[in-house]
């Protein structure tokens, strides 16, 4: 009995324990983690980049099955669940990241809107899911993503790989990938508001409280991004279970110049940049940090920080080191102090040439006129070793590319591409896609050029502001750079900026300039005139010409038909007389001869025949 009792108690405890452990495990499963970081990077010539990064990690598998949300935004989670998204990368950008002046961005994005999505293997109809997803996202972010349709969607085979954990077989199955870009759809406040609503604290607390639209959009570059991918659960070295990582990032480049006696000064502070200071972290955040990149602190014009940072992280890659000054916002709020990080240089700004990053791309239009043209891209390899790059173009159907015109030249030498993937476009259904794998020789300028013809659009296909031209997507240059030098923000892939992996080589995606082309555009301001003129010309010109060219003319013997009528005879006589007079008036100078002739053959019938001839 006692045993029974003991057993019963044991069972009770076991159940209790089980319940507790279950609760614990449930808690650990719902456990999600939120981090916020701000990285301020002073750039050359007075520019300052501020990179906000908000990371939410949720220990759950993909596709999302759970219905209970904690920190992870439910509105986005439902969309992802519904449309079976494995990875999602969305960016909304205004302005162009100037690689030659600013180095490489912490998170690259083309001007305009870019969206690329990997769907799960279970997705039955990827195109359908893609179509529904863009419409859902369009509503979620108040962006015109619904303009993404089959005419601007491509499936790149080489340049986009899953960024999260994925099996090799999955990563090769590009039928699950969709990529689209809208170069004209720029970002503004109406996109910022829904974007910051995805954050656990919105913009009410934490780093996001610095967001003030008038400051953020008065910048040289502004890029909002949302990236979702499956990752390994943090702390697990062999990857057993996956987690979902949502990264929301905002990159803003300012040029906060202040005129002074010695020249322009680029001193910055949080208050100067954002019009606010930091009063505290987001309470939900496990870590909240402000960092300043001091890697490019020249000894000639050193920069001082106030207040002094709580710690300094130094990471060395051998030839150069990355130095971050870190402020823990939690620490400051514990001290009940506001944080206003200020960077002050000892001297005024001196403009000068900038060190070139290892790989640069400049894209431009070749030729002029409304008939044809070429897209050229100059790829500059500054490294002393060859670089293998993937060059990707997505061209709308109304620019008819000719693959045989693809030319890749370094100086006078033609370079053979290692691989070319080309998907020809079809009118009004799908765009042209060109992916070229090529090896750039060491320290060289390589020009890639492909020619196109401009198509005529139907008159209803022109947008209302047709004369601005048509925007063409940025080209994408993907490369594995051998050294992690010259990255302005680093932290491209690492979950937080400070955790950046200083691996010997890293992957980089460069976005070039978008292009603006002019298609032959009708003069819409005077359609009425044009229609009237065209109809008149057709009616008169075509009608009579058609008549003349399709009829056979022959002579009719008038005398046999009805030459006898008195009236017609009189008329004919009258005509004949006038005819003679006309000839005299014509001043031929051969009057005598003519009279003689007409006298000879002066019968009514003949003159009637003459009428027919003349």
């Amino acid at each position, binding site marked *: 009995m006692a045993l029974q009792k003991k057993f019963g108690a044991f069972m009770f405890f076991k159940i209790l324990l089980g319940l507790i452990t279950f609760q614990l495990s449930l808690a650990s499963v719902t456990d999600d983690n939120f981090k916020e970081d701000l990285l301020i990077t002073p750039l050359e010539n*007075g520019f300052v980049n501020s990179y906000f990064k908000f990371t939410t990690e949720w220990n759950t598998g993909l596709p999302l099955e759970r219905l209970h949300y904690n920190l992870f935004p439910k509105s986005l989670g439902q969309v992802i669940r519904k449309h079976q998204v494995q990875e999602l990368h969305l960016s909304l950008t*205004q*302005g*162009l990241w*100037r690689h030659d*002046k600013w180095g490489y961005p912490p998170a690259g994005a083309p*001007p305009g809107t870019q969206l690329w999505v990997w769907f799960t293997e279970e997705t039955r109809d990827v195109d359908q899911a893609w179509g529904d997803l863009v419409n859902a996202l369009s509503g979620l972010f108040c962006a015109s993503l619904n303009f993404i349709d089959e005419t601007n969607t491509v499936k790149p085979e080489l340049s986009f790989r899953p960024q999260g954990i994925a099996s090799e077989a999955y990563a090769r199955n590009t039928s699950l990938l969709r990529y689209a870009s809208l*170069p004209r759809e720029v970002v503004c406040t109406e996109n910022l508001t829904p974007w910051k609503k995805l954050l656990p604290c919105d913009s009410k607390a934490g780093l996001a409280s610095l967001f003030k639209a008038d400051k953020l959009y*008065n910048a040289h*570059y502004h890029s909002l991004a949302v990236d979702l991918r499956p990752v390994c659960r943090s702390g697990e070295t062999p990857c057993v279970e996956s987690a979902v990582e949502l990264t929301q990032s905002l990159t803003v480049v300012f*040029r906060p*110049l202040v005129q002074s006696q010695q020249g*322009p000064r680029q001193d910055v502070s949080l208050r100067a940049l954002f019009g606010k200071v930091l009063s505290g972290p987001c309470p939900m955040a496990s870590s909240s940090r402000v960092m300043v990149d001091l890697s490019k602190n020249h000894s000639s014009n050193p920069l001082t920080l106030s207040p002094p940072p709580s710690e300094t992280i130094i990471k060395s890659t051998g030839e150069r080191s990355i130095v971050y000054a870190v402020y823990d916002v939690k620490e400051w709020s514990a001290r009940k102090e506001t944080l206003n990080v200020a960077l002050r240089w000892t001297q005024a700004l001196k*403009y*000068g040439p900038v060190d070139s990053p290892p790989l640069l791309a*400049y894209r*431009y*239009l070749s*030729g*002029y*006129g409304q008939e044809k043209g070429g897209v*050229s891209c*100059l790829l500059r390899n500054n490294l002393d070793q060859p670089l293998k790059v993937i060059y990707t173009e997505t061209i709308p159907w109304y620019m008819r590319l000719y693959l045989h015109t693809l030319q890749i030249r370094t100086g006078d030498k033609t370079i053979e591409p290692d691989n070319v993937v080309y998907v020809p476009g079809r009118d009004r259904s799908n765009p042209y896609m060109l992916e070229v794998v090529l090896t750039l020789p060491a320290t060289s*300028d390589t020009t890639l050029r492909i020619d196109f013809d401009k198509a005529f659009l139907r008159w209803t296909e022109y947008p209302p502001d047709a*004369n*601005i*031209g048509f*925007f063409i997507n940025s080209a994408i240059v993907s490369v594995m750079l051998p050294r992690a030098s010259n990255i302005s923000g680093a932290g491209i892939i690492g979950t937080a900026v400070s955790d950046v992996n200083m691996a010997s080589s890293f992957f980089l995606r460069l976005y070039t*300039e*978008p292009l*603006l*082309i*002019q298609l032959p*555009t009708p003069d819409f*301001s005077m359609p009425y005139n044009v229609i009237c003129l065209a109809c008149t010309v057709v009616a008169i010109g075509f*009608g*009579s010409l058609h*008549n*003349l060219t399709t*009829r056979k003319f022959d*002579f009719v013997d008038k005398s046999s038909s009805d030459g006898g009528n008195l009236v017609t005879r009189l008329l004919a006589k009258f*005509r004949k007389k006038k*005819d003679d*007079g*006309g*000839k005299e*008036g*014509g*001043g*031929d100078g*051969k009057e005598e*001869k003519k009279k003689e*002739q007409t006298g*000879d*053959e002066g019968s009514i019938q*003949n003159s009637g*025949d003459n*009428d027919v*001839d*003349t």
Partner: protein
Amino acid sequence: MGLLTDTRTQAVMSRVILAIHKPLEVLLYIAGVASLLVLAFTPLNEKTYFSENALLPGLVERKYLNDQSVKDYAKELTRLGAADNGKGPIPEDWLKAQFMDLGLDVFSQNFTVQHPFNVKAKGTQESGAVSGTNVYAILRAPRIASTEAIVITVPYRNKEAEAGRARTHYGIGLMLSLASFFSKNTFWSKDIIFVVVDKEEVGMQAWLAGYHDSHSEYLPTSLMLGRSGSIIAAINLELGSEFTDHIDLKIEGVNGQLPNMDLFNLAVRLCRVERVPVTFQNRFDPSERIVVKWAGLQHSATTMLLNMAKQASGKPSGIHGLFLRYHIEALTLQAHPAKRGSGVEAVGRVMEGVVRSVNNLLERFHQSFFFYVLPSCERYVSIGLYMIPFGLLLVVPTLRGMALWLLAMQSVEKMDTSSDEKDNDEKEDGDKKKKLELEQQGRPFGQVMPLIIGAHIMGAILFISPQYLVSEHIASFNVTPQGAIAIGFAAFFVGSASLPIFGRRNNFQTSEDLPSDWQLLKCLTLIWYTVTLLAVSMFNFSLAFFVAVPTIPIAVIVQPAEQSVLKIIQGFLLLMISPLSLLYSFITVHHGFFNPGDAMVDILTQGLHKTVDSLFEGVVNAYLYGNKSFALITLVWFPVWFLLWAVLFRKASGKKVSS
């Protein structure tokens, strides 16, 4: 629908044409010329207006405030330009440093333009190539991804290049000062490119070709790193002094292309707002007092004719003219120096206003007119108005062509009837058959077509001749390329003109037993001439008009003459309208207009020199800038002239008729 097929109306029409075409032609010709000139009269044309509302001209408060820095820049430039006795190259390093100090992206473009004939031309080095360096800086607009741009150009002129051209050191100073001012503002929605152009047109062309990556064999590729997007508009500034008497606006481009009229209106409006006097063709607008009087008409008509003369020349009136070919609206603001007047600041504010207005644009210039002539800054004559007088003018040769077409048929008939006189009895039976034959045999195309084709082949030979005339054999003769071209053309011309005179009878004169074909030949020539004039008027109205006015009456009256006096008179008139002499007369008249005090002989000889030069220039421009005038003259108008010349030497009529 019966208009063309009903034989009766045809007959009536042909009789009417034959009856009244001569008086009608005289009337139409006079009406055409007079009505075009009268269009310059203010009550008959229209006031300019802004068609593109997005420009919002002069609406923003212009804030440019700078005086001293421009003066300093100009002084420094004068000092730098004086080095090497004013023969030094463009101060590239200094310019780059200045732009760099403003925080702009600075680039330079080295260019070498091969001279088409690889010979030493005016103002070039021994190699025959022109090389120079353009310095340019790009102000990146914060809000766009470098998809659109506005260009401000100033030609660099050191002392050597200044001959005949105003200095521009204040222009460069003002450009730098504007760049500094612009870079402090964030409202730019288009990149602004500041270009200091070396070697005038050649440098501008090199820059444009480099920017658009469109190279030719004369413009070798040069690597160009700094680019922006498509250029919306370009403003060329020529400012050589601190004070400006007035700003002259220049619009004419290569092949007589004009910028969109909105841009011109914009410049006029901003000059007015800033109280800078503004002129067109260096002529102020007629004052209110005289505007509706005879003097007003005279004034406006002269301005309009000067505008048309420049357009007809096909040469750009400033370096802005090269932009137009790339569908970039462009004009030149040329400030005329004075001891006192509008200061640099006013000119700077005009520039600021123009650039900011263009910056407001959402779409490219497309609203206003691209085809127009201007009798003053505030009035315009659009294509819809000026084509009517020109149409009247073109009816003249068309009418004569139609009349000749009818006459050509009659002369064939006459030939036939006269030869059939003997068998008068069979006549009625064979009448129908004969008519049918005639209809099939038709007008004597077989006789005239070889001549027409031959004339055009000669034109084509003339077109390709410059390379052979100059490059191959110039070394053997002691002549300049200018001379070689002029002498070569003159020789070719004399040779071809003498062909009908000394040529074999059956080639150039109708043989005895064939019907006379001069009517048909002339008819086809006139129709072809009309068609070409109409086509040319579509892109360079002024050129077509200036060619049409003197040539049409002579082309219409030329016909074979039996009497030698008539023949000589006609021959003289035809020689007067030959391409070479027309060119000479235009240039002489133009020269005479601007130098009214000179002696007649001086004007005539100066005209000759200028003709020789401009002939050469025309050929070179055809190769370098795609100027079409040379092609037009050689491929179209020379053959037409030659055919008219051949008409004169054809037999007046068939054997029997003439006897």
